[in-house]
């Protein structure tokens, strides 16, 4: 009798475990399903309304590239439990300096290298300052956001014409194609997937983000890992800065101004946990960026005011995070 009860209890436990795993798997594929639904909705309604699908897709890829590049790099930072709000202004400074070098030398390679170099340098500066002086990374990046913003305006007013910096169109035109953007994003994504899933770097970052104390006791050097995470994010920012300059060779203070915040939304739409740790996914950024772009394109078919789209984005943002966190039983309020 006792053995029977024990057997039933074990069976119950196994069933519960299976149920929890299935629930978790369903939750984890919600972002992918959402992206596919949005893509399908866009394609169906764009065809019905007679919009050009090829032009629409080009716009979607172009919009998604910037956000995806920045957000994919930022995944390294978020996974290890850090946070960076200065990515958008970092991108602008990198693009401006890259643009200046590109204009002066007429070389795309130097423009690319400058954009990446400056972005990595600024990104590493954030984490180094925070590490050396024991400052909260979050606060540090907020401060640096305003510093980089002011530096960008300073560059524009002192080195630009009419607060703008223009790169010769002839220089960037050969690269201003959808194929170039696809190659850029696929190449960077593959590199990040390799670093994140194949090398031990990704596992160490997840460990650090999930339990910093345990990670420390296991011999993970948190400061070094954080600096590496910021540097890798810098590469993504630099590529995004280069891509932005290629797309719009006339740079002003408002260039890419919303990328910094949109990348946060993209990460969440893609199913990335904001607290980082073991549940982090490298592909979330790409998925989220395309979901957002498809949503933008779909909404643009029906409404003309971008503010309606913003409201829908805000509502969806909260709903998606709520759905992803639905399984978590929290007694205390999150901080």
């Amino acid at each position, binding site marked *: 009798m006792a053995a029977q009860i024990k057997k039933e209890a074990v069976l119950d436990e196994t069933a519960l475990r299976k149920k929890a795993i299935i629930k978790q798997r369903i939750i984890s594929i919600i972002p992918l399903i959402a992206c596919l639904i949005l893509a399908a909705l866009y394609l169906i309604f764009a065809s019905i309304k007679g919009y050009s699908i090829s032009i629409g897709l080009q716009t979607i890829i172009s919009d998604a590239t910037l956000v995806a590049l920045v957000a994919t790099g930022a995944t390294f930072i978020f996974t290890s439990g850090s946070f960076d709000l200065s990515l958008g202004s970092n991108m602008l400074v990198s693009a401006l300096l890259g643009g200046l070098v590109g204009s002066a030398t007429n070389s795309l390679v130097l423009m690319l290298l400058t954009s990446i170099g400056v972005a990595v340098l600024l990104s590493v500066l954030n984490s180094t300052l925070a590490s050396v002086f024991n400052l909260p990374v979050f606060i540090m990046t907020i401060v640096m956001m305003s510093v980089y913003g002011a530096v960008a305006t300073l560059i524009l007013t002192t080195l630009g014409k009419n607060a703008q910096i223009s790169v010769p169109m002839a220089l960037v035109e050969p690269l201003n194609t959808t194929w170039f953007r696809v190659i850029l994003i696929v190449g960077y994504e593959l590199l990040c997937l390799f670093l994140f899933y194949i090398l031990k770097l990704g596992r160490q970052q997840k460990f650090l983000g999930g339990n910093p104390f345990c990670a420390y006791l296991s011999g993970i050097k948190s400061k070094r890992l954080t600096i590496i995470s910021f540097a890798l994010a810098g590469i993504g920012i630099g590529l995004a800065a280069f891509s932005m300059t290629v797309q719009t060779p006339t740079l002003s203070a408002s260039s890419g101004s919303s990328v910094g915040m949109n990348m946060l939304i993209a990460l969440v739409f893609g199913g990335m946990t904001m607290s980082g740790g073991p549940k982090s996914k490298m592909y979330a950024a790409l998925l989220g960026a395309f979901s957002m772009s498809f949503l933008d394109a779909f909404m643009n078919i029906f409404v003309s005011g971008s503010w309606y789209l913003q*409201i829908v984005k805000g509502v969806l943002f909260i709903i998606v995070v709520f759905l992803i966190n639905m399984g978590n039983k929290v007694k205390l*309020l999150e901080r």
Partner: protein
Amino acid sequence: MDPAKNNQAVKVIKRIAGILAIPVLCFGIMELVCIANGITLFNGGYSTLQLFLRGTTFVFLLSLGVSINMHTGRFDFSTGAVMLISGVIGAKVAYGLNLGPAGMMAVAAVAGLVIGGLVGLLYILLKLPPMIIGLGMALILEGVVAIITDGCQPVKFGTDTSYYSFTVNPVALLILMALGLGVMLVIFHFTKFGYDYRALQTGQKIAVNTGVNEKMNALGCYIIAGFLFGIAGALSICSTNGTTPTINFSTIGTMFSCFLPLFFSGFIGKFINKQVAILLSCISYEFIQIGFGQITFKNAAFTTEIRSVVEAVILVAFLIYLNNEVKIVEVVMFKKFREKLKAKKIETADPEG
């Protein structure tokens, strides 16, 4: 003299020095910088004083509101959006119904209170991180503002100058500051809500386990913060005689403008009540702002961008100081060297001990 009394006197002096150090330093440095540029800090006389009071009131109300949630570890990105929407509602209603600036402040305060409460309600119902709720609500509220203003059309007061006049009226500004300070002092120091807040602030889990209603407290925090943001938003719109709303996360940066005073208050707060510390910090911050304004007036090369960089450098320097205070004091006071010297002296005096 009695050593106990002597100690007490030293403590009081240290405390007063701690309270006044930052305001005096800010005033002194900015006055010196201004003199070096051939002007004085309050060069414009009464009009500079009016601007000083207006700036202090705005940043004080904003800092008080931000401090409520930030000091409990909640980072609310919707601060700027709540300010904007409350101010716009206040302006539309007051101008439409001819309520005047005081009426606008009241309407904006109520609107802020309701919208802040809505943000708080979402936070406690969905149990999501405040940053997520803040980001989502910033998007939604900015969108709503755009709808209210017919697609981000300017909000103006026509030829009515009473709204602007209100923001340079010292009495009105002092009343607003007193209202903000009074509300905060009463709620956070003389009510159960305040005691619960501090319990949650220092030990969330223990406080909840001992019966503190965390959800109601969090909701209350958002409501009070919303009330203060509402008044700050209205003041901001009046001081520029209207506003042109923008979307795409343009409101997020608003809350960062009170970071420097809030970090100043982290130091002053060690010696005095938190809310008074915030007031003194805001006064210190405004000395810097007025000083920067005077330098810009005298020297056009000192642009807004350079001001922003200098301000950010001050913020970073102060943050470094706050987070490494013990080490810095040790270095400055040669503490380790003195300790070594003392130990050597004892060793020399009593080689066997």
